[in-house]
C-alpha cells in the first residue's frame, strides 16, 4: 500500500454560520504532485491553511504522514501567495533568517543557504537586496525557504500568480527537480497549464471536491475531445441558436474570437455547420479547432461559481 502523505476525511470548516468546507475527502500519496483547482471563494485557501496548520478545522480528520498538522510542522514547507521574503534583506540573508528559524547554527545555516541558492539558481545574485529581484527571482528564493532538509511536503499556494510564462516554466522546472528527490507537492492554482503538470487534480467548488482525477482523465471524462471556434463576419444571437444544434443542445459559449462549441468529429461537423450558417446568411470567416484544456474542465464544472464571482464576465 502506498504511504499517504496527506489524508483528509470529512473535513469541515465553519466561520460562524458560514460553512466554508463541507466534508472534504482527499488523499495524496507520498511523492505525488497533487493540484487543487477552484474558483475564488471555493474554499481552497482555507483547506490549504488548515493543511499548513495555520487555521484549525471545525471537524473531520486530517493527517500529514500520519501526524496531525500541528505536529507535522517540521515536515511541511509552506509557500503562501504573498511575497513573504524581506525586501530589506539580501537573498542570502533571507535564507540565513529562515535557516536560523529552523534551528541551524550560524555555520550550518551559511552552508545550507549557499547550497539552496545554488539549487534555485540564485547564487550569483545572493548578495543583492531582494528589493532588486524580479518577481520570478523572488519566487525562486521563497521556494528555497521551503526546501530545508527534512521537508517532505511542499504546499504551494498560487506560487506563479503574476509571473511571466518564462518565470513560471522556470519555477516548475525547479519543482520537478525537487520531486525527483521524493518530495510531495500540493499545489493550489487557477492556472490550467500549471495544473497539467500534476499527477492528480482535485476540483473544489463551494466547499466540496467535485471532481478528482488525473489531468487526462478529467479532460476525457468531462469534455468532448475538441473545441471548435467559429468566427463569423457578423455577431448575432441567432448564430448561437443555430450552433446549439451542433453542440448537442447545450448553450454556445461566446469567445473573444468567435463562438465555441464541442465537437466529437471536427471533419464531419464543419461542412454542415458552414452550410447551415450560410443558409441563414451568416458568413464563416475562420474556423479553429483546439484541444480541451484543464481550464475548459474547470469552467465547465465550476462555471456557475465563476459566473457568480465575476458577474458572468469570463
Amino acid at each position: 500500500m502506498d504511504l499517504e502523505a496527506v489524508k483528509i476525511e470529512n473535513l469541515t470548516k465553519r466561520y460562524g454560520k458560514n460553512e466554508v468546507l463541507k466534508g472534504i475527502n482527499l488523499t495524496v500519496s507520498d511523492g505525488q504532485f497533487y493540484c487543487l483547482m477552484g474558483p475564488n471563494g471555493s474554499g481552497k485557501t482555507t483547506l490549504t491553511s488548515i493543511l499548513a496548520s495555520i487555521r484549525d478545522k471545525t471537524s473531520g480528520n486530517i493527517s500529514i504522514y500520519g501526524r496531525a498538522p500541528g505536529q507535522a510542522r517540521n515536515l511541511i514547507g509552506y509557500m503562501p501567495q504573498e511575497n513573504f521574503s524581506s525586501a530589506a534583506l539580501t537573498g542570502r540573508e533571507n535564507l540565513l533568517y529562515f535557516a536560523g528559524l529552523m534551528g541551524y547554527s550560524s555555520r550550518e545555516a551559511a552552508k545550507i543557504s549557499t547550497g539552496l541558492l545554488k539549487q534555485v539558481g540564485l547564487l550569483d545574485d545572493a548578495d543583492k537586496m531582494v528589493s532588486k529581484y524580479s518577481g520570478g527571482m523572488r519566487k525562486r528564493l521563497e521556494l528555497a525557504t521551503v526546501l530545508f532538509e527534512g521537508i517532505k511536503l511542499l504546499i504551494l499556494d498560487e506560487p506563479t500568480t503574476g509571473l511571466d510564462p518564462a518565470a513560471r516554466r522556470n519555477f516548475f522546472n525547479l519543482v520537478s527537480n525537487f520531486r525527483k528527490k521524493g518530495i510531495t507537492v500540493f499545489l493550489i492554482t487557477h492556472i490550467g497549464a500549471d495544473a497539467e503538470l500534476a499527477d492528480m487534480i482535485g476540483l473544489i467548488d463551494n466547499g466540496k471536491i467535485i471532481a478528482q482525477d488525473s489531468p487526462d482523465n478529467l479532460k476525457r471524462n468531462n469534455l468532448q475531445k475538441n473545441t471548435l471556434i467559429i468566427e463569423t463576419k457578423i455577431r448575432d444571437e441567432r448564430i448561437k441558436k443555430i450552433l446549439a444544434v451542433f453542440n448537442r443542445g447545450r448553450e454556445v459559449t461566446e469567445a473573444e474570437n468567435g463562438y465555441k462549441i464541442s465537437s466529437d468529429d471536427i471533419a464531419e461537423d464543419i461542412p454542415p455547420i458552414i452550410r447551415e450558417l450560410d443558409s441563414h446568411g451568416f458568413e464563416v470567416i475562420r474556423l479553429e479547432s483546439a484541444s480541451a484544456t484543464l481550464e475548459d474542465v474547470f469552467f465547465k464544472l465550476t462555471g456557475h461559481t465563476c459566473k457568480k464571482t465575476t458577474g458572468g464576465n469570463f
Partner: protein
Amino acid sequence: MRQVNSVFIKTIKELYRNKTTVFWTVVWPVIFLFLGIFLFYRADPLSETPTFRAGITISMVVFSLMLSGFSTMPGIIATDRSNGLFLKLRSMPIKQWRDLLGRIFGLLFYVLVSAVLICAIGIVLGARFNLGPGNISVSLGFLVLATLAASGAGIIIGTFVKNINGAVITGVGIAVVSMSLAGVTFPYAFLPGALQAFSRFYPFSSSNAIISFMLSTEAFVGYNPINALQISFTIASSILLFVLSIILYTRFCWKAD
C-alpha cells in the same frame, strides 16, 4: 536561542536599512537636541549649564525610544503581516514568543545605540552627565524599562492595527500626543496640575524624569521623582505593559482568521 538570534539579526538589519526610520528616530531627535539647546531653552539662564543640557539630551533619548517603540515596532509587525510572513511562520516549528523576543532584543539594541549616539552629540554640544556608579546603573535600568514599555505599546498597536500606515500613524499619534501631555519634550513646570500628575505616573515621562534627575539636575526635571510611589508605579506599569503585549501578541498577532 538560534531562532531568537535569527529574528534579532533580521530586525536590526531592517531597522538600520530603513532610512526613514533612522531619520525619525535618530536624526530628528538630534535636530531637536540642537533646537532645544540653542533655541527653545535659550531664554532660560540655566540652559547654559552643562547639566541642564544633559537633561535636554536625555529627553531626546526618551523621545527617540518612544518613537522607535510606538511606531517602528508596529510598522515592522504590520509589514510582516501584510507580506504573509506570519502565515509562513505559523506553518513552521517556531513559537511566537521566540519571534517576539528576537524583535524586542532588536529594538532594544537599536534604542541603546541611538541613545549612545544622541548622548555623544549632546556631550559635543556641551552636555555633562553626573556619572556616579549608582546613577549610571539606575538610569540604564530605567532606560531599558522604558524601551520595553515602548516596545510593549508598539507590539499591542501592531497586533491589532493590521494596516501598515494605520499602525505607524497610530503609534506616532499616541507617542507624540502623550509625550506632549506628559511633558517629555517640554518643561514639567509649564504643565497644568492634572498633567503634572499624569507626567509623574506615565511610565515614559516618569522614567525620563528619573533618568534626568540621576544624570542631570533637579532644576531641569522640575521636581524630585525619587520616591517609592513613583518608582514602584513606573516599574510596575512598564512591566505590566510589556507583559500584556507578550500575551496579546502570542494570542492574536499570528492569527489567520
